């Protein structure tokens, strides 16, 4: 019946043909006519919607600012994240009568860009972030760096303060070649050469950002172009940005399938392209077909269900050799992981056969030797690879896969059981709390489909059992430019209002960008922010000592850049200043109570912040760490 309906709606068969075929399936004439009349009504609605759709290409006349707004709407933009910019006056003027475009004022360009990027990552829909000229751009650049590293399609715009006919005089806020400042951090950067080119430049920026592999783009133009009146074409996104999806080479797919079924112990590495392509189920299917253990290197998202019996855990130090089990793998297959190399050793040793499937072709073959490159969209690639493996399966291979799956399950069950022992830490009930206790309490508290935005550098994520298919999701600060966590959380909550969003942030990271707390309060985005406040840069402290072990720093206890206390900062007071209710907690019981209060607040649409006092642990810490002896008062010479 479904086929018949499809044929009728696509006009492949006539009304009479539809009725005759329906009768042939045993349906009465009256029932068939009833179906037909409802189909006609439905077709009528579709037709009327189609006729009210905007034209694919239209000519528009107005200020450069109005052209910009029109093209943004045609690009599918709903939210604009920006900081006040007087030279964009004509753009603001255009927004007044275009309520489809919602302007979100962010009080600092960095967290504003993080908020825009968070919105994109959680919604997979386009948006734009804009700043006031070069000066605002400089603040946003850190988060553009993150977007570049994370391959987030963030479109960035800022005007040139200088006017087109007076540029090059080292004027107010003017720098030469402003667009080139962003060049190493973007896929596309361009300055429009006239007001009539604003819309086209905008289209190029969106197309470039949203063409896989994704990444940020930047556009600019002289501010007088925004004020000028012009005539231009406005084109709908569907007709200039094809969101191309490339299929891997079929010959390479066959070669990969052969290697996979011949391997004794293949291992799968998963990555963010799986999340972006919504292909988690396909990755699970391929792993299950072959009884293949699965791991992940550093990424934004958790890309495989962590409670799955084939999940052997994240690679602790980012290389395959750091996973506990298996050690005797003879083949590795990457599905969409960016495979970021930080050390000398390749993530996958040269001695292991390697299949690399991803659209990020530029990073393929850089460090690791690759036996089969599969360049393409991972969802399509997985479809093809699964089909090719199915062709090769026989009783022997199925039996081997089943045996391997049993072996993997035996390990993963044991590993999960041992992880529960984390509560046996002798400092578990300490006050101030140890970081693991905070994480564990949040994991007990979080909703089954909560989103955890993680920017707490020295804090280990455990006990959440992330599952990108309907379970808890992780948004990790892959890029590493700090100050993204709070902004990202606000953007994620804007995109996913029905899911609990919890931001886990270290005190150091928090201080780089707390400003979006104000957006949470103003926009009623009920995010729970938890600050692991140890009054220290704990991660850099540990790594600094590891880089110069047994040196003068350790001997004297003089660590230059580690301690953030004296005076201790109160993050709850900072949150209060942004209009967010907050409290400081010092022990596990207080934390439990605070979490319950946070939940009650968020149910009323209010954000909440908990400043958890966390113990400093590691080499060289004392209760009163040394600080460099610089004081202003003794330098004063003038008597009062």
């Amino acid at each position, binding site marked *: 019946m479904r086929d018949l309906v499809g044929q009728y709606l696509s006009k492949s068969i006539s009304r009479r043909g539809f009725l005759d075929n329906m009768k042939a399936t045993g349906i009465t004439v009256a029932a068939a006519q009833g179906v037909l009349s409802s189909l006609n009504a439905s077709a009528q609605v579709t037709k009327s919607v189609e006729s009210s759709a905007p034209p694919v290409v239209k000519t528009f006349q107005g200020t450069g600012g109005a052209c910009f707004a029109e093209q943004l709407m045609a690009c599918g933009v709903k939210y604009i994240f920006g900081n006040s910019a007087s030279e964009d006056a004509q753009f603001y003027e255009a927004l007044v009568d275009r309520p489809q475009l919602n302007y979100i004022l962010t009080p600092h360009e960095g967290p504003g860009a993080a908020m825009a990027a968070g919105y994109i990552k959680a919604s997979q829909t386009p948006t734009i972030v804009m700043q006031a000229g070069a000066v605002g751009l400089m603040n946003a650049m850190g988060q553009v760096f993150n977007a570049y590293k994370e391959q987030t399609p963030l479109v960035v715009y800022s005007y040139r303060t200088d006017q087109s006919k007076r540029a090059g005089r080292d004027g107010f806020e003017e720098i030469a070649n402003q667009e080139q400042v962003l060049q190493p951090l973007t896929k596309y950067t361009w300055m429009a050469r006239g007001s009539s080119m604003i819309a086209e430049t905008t289209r190029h920026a969106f197309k470039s950002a949203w063409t896989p592999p994704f990444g940020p783009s930047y556009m600019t133009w002289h501010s007088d172009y925004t004020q000028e009146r012009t005539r231009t074409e406005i084109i709908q996104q569907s007709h200039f940005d094809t969101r191309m999806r490339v299929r891997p080479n079929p010959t390479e797919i066959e070669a990969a399938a052969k290697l996979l079924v011949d391997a004794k112990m293949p291992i799968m590495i998963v990555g963010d392209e799986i999340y972006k392509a919504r292909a988690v189920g396909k990755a699970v299917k391929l792993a299950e077909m072959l009884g293949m253990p699965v791991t992940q290197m550093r990424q934004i998202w958790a890309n495989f269900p962590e409670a799955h019996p084939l999940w052997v*855990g*994240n*690679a*602790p*130090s980012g290389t395959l*050799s*750091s*996973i*506990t*089990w298996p050690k005797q793998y003879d083949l590795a297959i990457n599905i969409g992981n960016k495979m970021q190399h930080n050390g000398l050793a390749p993530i996958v040793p040269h001695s292991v056969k390697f299949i690399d499937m991803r659209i990020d072709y530029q990073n393929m073959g850089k460090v690791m030797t690759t036996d089969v490159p599969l360049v393409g969209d991972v969802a399509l690639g997985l479809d093809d690879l699964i089909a090719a493996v199915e062709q090769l399966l026989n009783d022997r291979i199925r039996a081997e896969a089943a045996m391997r799956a049993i072996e993997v399950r035996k390990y993963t069950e*044991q*590993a999960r059981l*041992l*992880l529960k*022992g*984390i509560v*046996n*830490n*002798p*400092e578990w009930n300490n006050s101030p709390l*140890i*970081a*693991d206790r905070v*994480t564990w309490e949040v994991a007990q508290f979080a909703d089954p489909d909560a989103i955890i935005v993680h920017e707490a550098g020295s804090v*280990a*994520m*455990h*006990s959440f059992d992330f599952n990108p298919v309907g379970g808890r999701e992780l948004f990790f600060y892959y890029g590493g430019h700090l100050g993204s966590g709070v902004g990202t959380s606000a953007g994620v909550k804007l995109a996913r209002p029905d899911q609990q969003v919890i931001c886990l942030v270290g005190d150091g990271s928090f201080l780089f960008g707390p400003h979006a707390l104000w957006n949470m309060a103003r926009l009623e985005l009920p995010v729970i922010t938890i600050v692991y406040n140890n009054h220290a840069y704990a991660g850099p402290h*540990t790594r600094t*000592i*590891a*880089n*110069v*072990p*047994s*040196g*003068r720093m*350790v*001997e004297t206890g003089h660590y230059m850049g580690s301690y953030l206390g004296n005076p201790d900062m109160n993050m709850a007071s900072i949150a209060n200043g942004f209009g967010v209710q907050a409290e400081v907690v010092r022990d596990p019981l207080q934390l439990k109570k605070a979490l319950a209060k946070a939940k009650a607040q968020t149910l009323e649409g209010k954000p909440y912040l908990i400043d958890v006092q966390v113990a400093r*642990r*590691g*080499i*060289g810490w004392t209760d009163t760490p040394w600080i460099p002896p610089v004081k202003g008062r003794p330098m004063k010479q003038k008597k009062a």
Partner: protein
Amino acid sequence: MPMNTFFNLRVLGIVLSSFLFCFCVRAQTSVATQAAIDSQSGEIQQGKSLLQSKCAQCHTDSIWRDQRQDARAWEATLYRMMGRGAVWSGSDIHAMASYLATDFGPQSPRVFTPQ
């Protein structure tokens, strides 16, 4: 037998018995202590070996060699690694902490190498 001689023999007997008793008790204590030492030494060796095999997956010794703390604090340090992907049992942790508290305990000498 003169009374004195009898008395002296009794005293001698008591002394000899006491000596023998003490010798036996001491010998037994020594065996028990030695067993405990052996056991502890075995655990420390086992801890050292575990540390070398398990921690070396991710770290060089530069990450811990400047730390000086007791066994409890070392246990806490090792438990912190579990959340980062270390797959260890409680007894693994206990053994590694025993070793670390021996070679890197609060009283262990520090060696500085100014760079």
